[in-house]
């Protein structure tokens, strides 16, 4: 196995990994810079990368704090949404009735526009607290988690179920020994979608008043003050935050489920 993967990575090494995207990013930024300077484009239309980078570093300590604030909201929403999604998925896979009740509900929640929800939650809960933002994030996270984990719990190979039956396994045992392990790769698929979404949700929720320390608030206030370079610098910080969430999930997945992404045994 080790020789095979070694050969494979050697063969594809030159064209895969981290270098091609970096090369493309550098070329893209260079073209952008040249375009803005050559055509003398105004910053409110499109600031040059150099301006964004300068702003990024002058605001670095504030940016850290902002990213930490929004990241914390996203993380809390992600945790609560995931836990709730898991509980709902377990119930839905165990009881068909619950499945029929909960699936449309979850789909309905997913269709609720976060924009419409935030001001309402701000009124329902203490606007000066983080609570409404965490709630919004939680609702956004719930759906991909619920859908993916439910599918993982239910999409078990029939022959594996027959094996459990031949061993006279109790449904609870089948859940523990077969369904839950089977759902783990699905869980990570859901989490890879939900984690960056959580950052976006936490950020957008800040546009509707409340504490002003997050990334979303900073982008809004910079844009309002015609500090476009700074606004864009915070956008970059937001992208990085979302990316970190995603990469952490990928790393945890690699570490905990070495069997995913392999050719399945029969």
């Amino acid at each position: 196995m080790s020789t095979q993967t070694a050969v494979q990575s050697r063969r594809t090494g030159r064209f895969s990994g981290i270098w091609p995207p970096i090369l493309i990013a550098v070329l893209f930024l260079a073209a952008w810079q040249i375009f803005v300077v050559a055509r003398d484009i105004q910053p409110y239309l499109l600031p040059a990368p150099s301006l964004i980078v300068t702003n990024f570093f002058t605001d670095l300590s504030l940016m850290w704090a902002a990213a930490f604030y929004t990241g914390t909201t996203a993380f809390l929403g992600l945790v609560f949404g995931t836990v709730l999604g898991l509980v709902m998925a377990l119930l839905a896979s165990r009881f068909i009735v619950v499945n029929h009740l909960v699936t449309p509900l979850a789909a309905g929640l997913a269709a609720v526009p976060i924009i419409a929800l935030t001001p309402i939650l701000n009124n329902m809960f203490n606007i000066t607290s983080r609570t409404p933002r965490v709630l919004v994030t939680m609702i956004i996270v719930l759906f991909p988690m619920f859908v993916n984990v439910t599918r993982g719990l239910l999409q078990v190979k029939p022959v594996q179920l027959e094996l459990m039956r031949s061993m006279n396994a109790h449904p609870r045992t089948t859940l523990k020994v077969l369904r839950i392990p089977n759902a783990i790769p699905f869980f990570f698929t859901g989490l890879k979608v939900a984690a960056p979404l959580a950052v976006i949700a936490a950020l957008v929720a800040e546009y509707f008043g409340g504490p002003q320390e997050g990334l979303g608030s900073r982008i809004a206030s910079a844009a309002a003050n015609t500090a476009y370079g700074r606004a864009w610098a915070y956008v970059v910080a937001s992208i990085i935050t979302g990316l970190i969430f995603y990469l952490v999930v990928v790393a945890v997945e690699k570490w905990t489920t070495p069997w995913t992404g392999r050719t399945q045994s029969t």
Partner: protein
Amino acid sequence: MSSVQTSHQAVDVQGLWKIFNEGSNNEVTALSDINLSIKPGEFISLIGPSGCGKSTLLRVIGDLTDATRGEVFIAGETAHIAREKQLYGIAFQQAALFDWRTVRRNVELPLELQGLGKKERRERALELLELVQLSDFAEHRPWELSGGMQQRVAIARSLAVDPPLLLMDEPFGALDEMTRERMQNELLRICQETGKTIIFVTHSIPEAVYLSDRVVVMSPRPGRITHTVPIELGERNEDTRETDTFYAGVTAVREALRGRSTSASPSRIEEF
């Protein structure tokens, strides 16, 4: 236990029918009027063209799917009770291993469900892996093994709780000829030593003849037993595959599969 075995057939199938989607327009009669009695310690092979209901028959015997009509008894118990009592082990056509468990822990699974201690489980699993010659792969993951190796893990797993009856669905299909012959001899040895009853599905006529006390020939649409060919090879050894009795058995089964029985065959063939 021996008193139970002597007073009952190991497996008794009476007037069994299995009809999928009965009443709808994609109705399939997978099994029609199957009658089969198997004595304790007997080795039975099921052979027949693809789709003739061999796997379905095994699944009904294992109480993994319901019979439409008819009855199945295992050692005098209904199939349902027999399953609850774990009176059989099964190796499916697909290995059906759990990717998230190591090879050893896959073999341990039935023992784990029986609540056996960690240490005993481990010892038994390693013993079984040695039997199927996979000791070196105990801590590997299933997807690191070839198809034939996976199948051997599944066989080891089916033997784990030491059940009196083994249901095996083409377990050697993915093996090379040498490994296959070795596994055949291992299986015969296990049967002799433990007195297990075996129902063995295969597509290979020589394999069926070599292993079995009786070869049950099935034909499709609707799935039914057409012939039963008794095989009397006595003690199997390296020369068995060269004997006239062996060739006669192979010929008899082949003729039966073609839908006729030859008078040339020394074996007595029961036609249905």
